[in-house]
C-alpha cells in the first residue's frame, strides 16, 4: 500500500488500536512549558508516585512569561524548573530560553519521522521537519509524560500542493494566511495538512516553520512538510544530533519518509503562489485575511467588522495604528528579523514598536550582525526573548480599542488585551506599517521584496 508522509509516521508509532478509530500513539518527544505543564506534572506527583516514563524524552522550557512578571508566574516557572531538575529533564531557562517552538528545533530536538506533543496549540510548527507534532491539553501532555503515549483519533490527510514561487514581497506568512483564507478558519478541522509542491521545496526551514505554525489556525491537527536536503542540512552538526556515520544513517532513514508517488489522500487542494502578494487580516480570526490593498469583502461577518472597527469595502491602509509587534513562534527567527531590518534600516518608526526575538540564540545571532542597532536606531524596543505581547499576558498588552499590526498568528477578540484589535501580517509589512503609522506595504517605502536579499542562516545555540 502506498503511503503518505503522515501515514508513514503514524503507522510507525501506533502501539495499539483502540475503539472508535482511536489509537494509542507513541510520543518520541514531549515539550513542556510553564503555563500548561505544572497541572499534569503535579497530578503525576500526587497520584502516580512522581514517575515519568522516560525523562530523557522531555524538554522543559520557561517561555510564556519569562522572566516571571509577578508571584504567580514566578511559581509556575519554579514548579517547572524544580520538576525538571528533580527528574534530570533538559531545561532551558532564563538566559538560554526562548519560545518553545523556536528553541526545540534550534537545539536539535525535532527530526523527521518523530512524534511530538506539547500543551501548546502551535506545536504544529515542528511539522516543518516532517514530524507529526501536535498541541494537546495539559492532561494529555501529562499522560504523555506518564505513559509516553497519546490517545488519538486518526486524522484525515489533506494534501496541499503549492506550485509557483513566492515573489513580489510575498512571504511564508502570506502563504500561511492564504491557505487559511482558502480553507476557511475551520476548513482544516480533522485533517493533517501534508504540504507538497515546488513552492514548498524552495522554502527554508524558517519559512516551513512559519507555514506549519499556522496549520492550527485552519483548525488542522497539524501541518507537515516533506523532509529533504534543506531539512538534513539544518540538522547536520546540530546540538543533540549525532555526528558522522550515525547522522548519515539517520539521513538514510529520513529519505524514506517522502510520500509514495501514488499515495491517496482524503482531500487534495492545489494553490499557485506566483500571484500571491502580502496579506493582512481585517477580522477576528486568521481566515479573515485579504491582499494588502484589497477591499474588505462585502459579505464580511458583521460581528468581526464591529469588533475591529472597520467597514466592508474599505481599504485597511486608511487605519491608524497604536502599536506594532514583531515576534512570536510564527515570525521571530533570524530571517524574519533580517526582513524587518531590511525595511527599517535608516528609517524611523512613528508608533510604539516592539521587536522580540524568538530565542536568546536568535537574539545573539541578530546582535552579532547588528540588527539590534538597526531596530533601536529606528526607535523600536528591542527586548529579550519570550512569547511577550503575542498572548496579552505580560508586556505589550493593548488598551481597549487599541490597534496593533503584528507578526503573530492570532487576531481573536481580546488576544493581546481585552478590546484590543490585532491585524496579522509578515514582519516586513509590520515594519513598513510601523514607519508609516498605518497599515502599509514595504513597496510604499520603495522596498519591493524585503525577503529577496535575506538569506536564511539557521541559528545554532
Amino acid at each position, binding site marked *: 500500500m502506498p503511503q503518505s508522509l503522515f501515514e508513514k509516521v503514524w503507522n510507525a508509532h501506533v*502501539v*495499539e488500536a*483502540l*475503539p*472508535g478509530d*482511536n489509537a*494509542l500513539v*507513541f510520543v*518520541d518527544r514531549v515539550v513542556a512549558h510553564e*503555563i*500548561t505543564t*505544572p*497541572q499534569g506534572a*503535579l497530578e*503525576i506527583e500526587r497520584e*502516580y508516585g512522581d514517575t515519568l*516514563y522516560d525523562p530523557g524524552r522531555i524538554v522543559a522550557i520557561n517561555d510564556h512569561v519569562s522572566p516571571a512578571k*509577578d508571584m*504567580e*508566574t514566578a*511559581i*509556575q516557572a519554579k*514548579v517547572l524548573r524544580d520538576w525538571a531538575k528533580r527528574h534530570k529533564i533538559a531545561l532551558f531557562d532564563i538566559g538560554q530560553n526562548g519560545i518553545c517552538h523556536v528553541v526545540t528545533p534550534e537545539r536539535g530536538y525535532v*527530526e523527521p*519521522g518523530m*512524534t511530538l506533543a506539547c*500543551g*501548546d*496549540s502551535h506545536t504544529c510548527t515542528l511539522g516543518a521537519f516532517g514530524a507529526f507534532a501536535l*498541541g*494537546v*491539553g*495539559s*492532561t*494529555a501532555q*501529562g*499522560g504523555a509524560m*506518564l*505513559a*509516553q*503515549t497519546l*490517545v488519538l*483519533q486518526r486524522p484525515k490527510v489533506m494534501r496541499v500542493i503549492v506550485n509557483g514561487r513566492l515573489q513580489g514581497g510575498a512571504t511564508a506568512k502570506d502563504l500561511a494566511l492564504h491557505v487559511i483564507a482558502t480553507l476557511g*478558519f*475551520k476548513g482544516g*478541522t480533522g485533517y493533517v495538512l501534508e504540504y507538497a509542491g515546488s513552492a514548498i521545496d524552495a522554502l527554508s526551514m524558517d519559512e516551513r516553520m512559519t507555514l506549519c505554525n499556522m496549520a492550527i489556525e485552519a*483548525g488542522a*491537527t497539524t501541518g507537515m512538510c516533506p523532509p529533504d536536503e534543506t531539512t538534513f542540512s539544518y540538522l547536520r552538526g546540530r546540538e543533540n544530533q549525532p555526528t558522522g556515520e550515525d547522522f548519515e544513517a*539517520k539521513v538514510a532513514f529520513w529519505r524514506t519518509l517522502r510520500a509514495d508517488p501514488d499515495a491517496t489522500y482524503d482531500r487534495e487542494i492545489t494553490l499557485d503562489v506566483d500571484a500571491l502578494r502580502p496579506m493582512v487580516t481585517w477580522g477576528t*480570526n486568521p481566515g479573515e485575511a485579504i491582499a494588502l490593498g484589497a477591499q474588505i469583502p462585502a459579505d464580511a461577518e458583521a460581528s468581526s467588522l464591529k*469588533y475591529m472597527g472597520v467597514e466592508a469595502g474599505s481599504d485597511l491602509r486608511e487605519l491608524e495604528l497604536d502599536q506594532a509587534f514583531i515576534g512570536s513562534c510564527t515570525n521571530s527567527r533570524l530571517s524574519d528579523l533580517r526582513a524587518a531590518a531590511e525595511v527599517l534600516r535608516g528609517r524611523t518608526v512613528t508608533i510604539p514598536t516592539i521587536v522580540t526575538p524568538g530565542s536568546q540564540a536568535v537574539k545573539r545571532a541578530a546582535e552579532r550582525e547588528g540588527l539590534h542597532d538597526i531596530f533601536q536606531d529606528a526607535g523600536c524596543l528591542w527586548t529579550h526573548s519570550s512569547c511577550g505581547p503575542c*498572548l*496579552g*499576558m505580560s508586556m505589550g*498588552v493593548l488598551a481597549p480599542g487599541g490597534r496593533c499590526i503584528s507578526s503573530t498568528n*492570532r487576531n*481573536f*477578540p*481580546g*488576544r493581546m488585551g481585552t478590546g484590543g484589535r490585532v491585524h496579522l501580517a509578515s514582519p516586513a509589512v509590520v515594519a513598513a506599517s510601523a514607519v508609516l503609522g498605518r497599515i502599509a506595504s514595504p513597496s510604499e517605502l520603495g522596498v519591493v521584496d524585503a525577503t529577496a536579499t535575506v538569506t536564511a542562516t539557521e541559528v545554532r545555540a
Partner: protein
Amino acid sequence: MIIAGTVLPLDRANVDTDQIIPAHNLTGIEKTGLGKHLFTGMTGGAELLARHSEAAILVARENFGCGSSREHAAWSLADRGFRAVIAPSFARIFYENAYNNGIAPIVVDATEIDALLESIFASIDLEREVIARDDGGEVPFTLDPLRKQFLLSGGYMKFLASKIETVRAWESAKGSPRA
C-alpha cells in the same frame, strides 16, 4: 448517566479559548478554581453567565473551543458546573480536553441548534445518546466509544497508567521507533 439541567444559550460560532478564559488568567498551577474567569474574555460574557448562573449545559454554534490548547477552558467550564457542551462542531483540542474533564462534547446537526438555543432545560442521556428537549423532541448524537468511558468512569490518566507495560513491551519489541 443522565445530564439534566438548564441551558446557557451562546448564539455564536468560533468561540475561541481566549474568549472562554483570557491568557492573563492562566497564571495558576492547578486545575481548580478557574470558574470565576469563565467568559471574562467575551463581550457580554459575564452578563450572559449571570443570567444563567445555574446552567449545566452550554449550547453554541460551530467550531466551539478553537484556538489555544489551554485546558483551562474546560476547567473553568467544569468549575462553573457545566457538564455538557452541545455544538455542531468542536475544535480538536477542546473536544479532547472536554472528555478528559467530565464535560460531554455533544455534536449535533447544525439544524438542531436553533431549537436547542431556545430551550430552557435539556436532558442528555449519555448511554442512549439522545438529548431530550423541553419541547418533547429527541436529538440523537454519537459519543466517541472510548472517551465515553472517560466520562462515565473518569480517568484519561488512569487509562494511560494501565497501558505503561504495554507501551514498554511495544517499545522494546520495536527498538527505537525513530530507527
